[in-house]
């Protein structure tokens, strides 16, 4: 296993085990920080035969690291509860998201408002962590992070509301049902809203609460003061959990939730009760299984061959389940296929988020907050008004909805271009509360 590319190995295995990857990139060289006396987290210390368990062992070691506080006078209680706050919010939001037609933990009447409200509570984790660290420059970091967070949360909330205009209800189940009734994902009715939400979710989740130097999840070469401990691990986990929450909410509101693409197209195979497009998931996953099988035969080494055969079995069993439920009762089929489409859409969204995050360097806090407050929030408000006007136009003049919403999107984009021309991008002036 030594000559596998490390990114493939460690990142995917740690993601598969549900833990935050130690670094999305090549591993740290061993013998890293012997000066500070705390044993390094990323070195390979297991027997070569157990090397496949190395990421799990690294994670366990991370979790039992000795606790490190940012400074001497830190308020320990507040600093400890901050990452739990972020994680609780992320986990609570998944109570409401519908994964299938009957596959929802609870259907709150105000589901979307609940998710928005508790996402706003995430500002406490950002502020408390930095402020309670009791260091001079962390206070400025706390306030900067707070304004950054507020701006992007407001923009994403307004973008969600503009999609909400097309349904009559805040309940997540009703939103997906409305997309089924109108025969169109809301992505095609409010594309600008989806873009705003996407940008906002990337900007919100790239910033963990802890802003100590060297505490970023993606830094490869850490200095001596590398703070890798349980609180940091919780914070990184909350970071990734927030991406999944944003993906779940975006999927439900914009991408049609558990609906199949072209959900109102109901042609069947002649002679069978099976619908044409419902066979697509099974066929796709079966194709992936066949690809894995063929690729397994081409591998040179035994270990890689075993991995591909294992992958082929997994994909093959999923394909079998998807194809078998085509002939099962309606409830089972819609449940399984609904869950499949939901997982596909969430995965695509998360993939896009991580792709953007890996490609571009992180924005400094000033231009990012500038983008949030001066461009995204006004654009979201204009989008809201334009979508409302488009819906009224459709009701009173009878023009098709797609035409009016496209006009609304064009108007919003024109407003956005105008805003970015007139808004200056120089950094904000220094105040006493800042640096």
């Amino acid at each position: 296993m030594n000559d596998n590319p490390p990114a493939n190995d460690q990142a995917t295995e740690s993601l598969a085990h549900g833990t935050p990857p130690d670094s999305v990139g090549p591993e740290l060289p061993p013998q890293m920080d012997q000066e500070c006396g705390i044993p390094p987290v990323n070195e390979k210390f297991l027997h070569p035969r157990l090397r496949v368990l190395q990421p799990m062992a690294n994670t366990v070691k991370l979790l039992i690291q000795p606790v490190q506080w940012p400074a001497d006078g830190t308020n320990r209680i507040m600093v400890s509860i901050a990452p739990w706050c972020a994680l609780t919010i992320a986990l609570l939001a998944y109570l409401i998201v519908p994964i299938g037609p009957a596959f929802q933990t609870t259907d709150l009447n105000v589901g979307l408002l609940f998710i928005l409200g508790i996402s706003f509570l995430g500002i406490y984790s950002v502020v408390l962590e930095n402020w309670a660290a009791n260091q001079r420059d962390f206070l400025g970091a706390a306030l900067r992070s707070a304004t950054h967070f507020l701006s992007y949360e407001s923009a994403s909330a307004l973008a969600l509301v503009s999609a909400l205009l097309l349904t009559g209800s805040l309940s997540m189940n009703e939103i997906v049902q409305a997309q089924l009734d109108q025969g169109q994902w809301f992505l095609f009715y409010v594309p600008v809203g989806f873009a705003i939400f996407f940008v906002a979710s990337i900007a919100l989740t790239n910033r963990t609460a802890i802003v100590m130097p060297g505490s970023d999840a993606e830094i490869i070469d850490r200095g001596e003061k590398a703070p890798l401990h349980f609180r940091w691990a919780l914070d990184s986990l909350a970071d990734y959990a927030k991406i999944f929450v944003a993906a779940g909410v975006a999927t439900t509101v914009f991408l049609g939730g558990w609906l199949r693409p072209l959900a109102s197209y109901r042609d069947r195979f002649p002679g069978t009760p099976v619908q044409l497009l419902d066979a697509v998931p099974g066929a796709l996953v079966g194709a992936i299984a066949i690809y894995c099988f063929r690729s397994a035969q081409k591998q040179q080494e035994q270990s890689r061959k075993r991995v591909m055969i294992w992958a082929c079995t997994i994909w093959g069993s999923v394909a079998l389940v998807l194809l078998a439920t085509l002939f099962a009762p309606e409830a089972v089929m819609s449940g399984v296929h609904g869950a499949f489409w939901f997982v596909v859409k969430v995965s695509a969204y998360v993939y896009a988020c991580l792709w953007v995050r890996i490609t571009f360097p992180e924005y400094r806090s000033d231009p990012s907050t500038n983008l949030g407050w001066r461009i995204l929030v006004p654009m979201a408000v204009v989008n809201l008004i334009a979508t409302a006007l488009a819906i009224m136009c459709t009701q009173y003049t009878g023009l098709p909805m797609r035409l009016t919403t496209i006009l609304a999107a064009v108007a919003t984009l024109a407003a956005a271009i105008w805003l970015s021309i007139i808004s200056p991008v120089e950094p904000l002036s220094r105040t006493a509360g800042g640096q």
Partner: protein
Amino acid sequence: MSVLHTILFYFFSALAVASALVMITRRNVAHAGIFLVTTLLATGGIFLLLQAEFAFALQIFLFAGGAVVLFVLASSLARLEVTRRLPGSQRGRLAAAALGLVLAAQIGFAIVVGHTSLRLPAMQSARAPKNTEAVGDALLRQFIVPFEIASVLLLVSMIGAVVLARRRA
């Protein structure tokens, strides 16, 4: 089902009262803010028990996620974490506590002992119709004028706050 209701009610109310008591005794302003958030969330739970989901969402959004954030940020900006116990601030404490108890006794008497004269019927057990719809309907039909005045009020208070807190060079 009503047993669960009762247990949840006592849980949330105990949480709310305990957090409120802790909140007013904290010397650290930020700690007091955090306990206020706990109180507001517990009250939100009470609203959920009363099947008032819109009030619950509003509580979380505006109260806990808005007003208290403002307090926490303001106290952090002003570096007001710990307040000193100044001399002379202890006088009148006994009178204040006694006044509070008298107020509690008066209203409590009206509720508990005199409830026959208040003529309060029992709570409805039927499920309330779609809460958000009803509230939104009332807000935008019957109470549209207060709604617009509230938005003007918010605008004015935002502008006033920005003007007041500006640093005069």
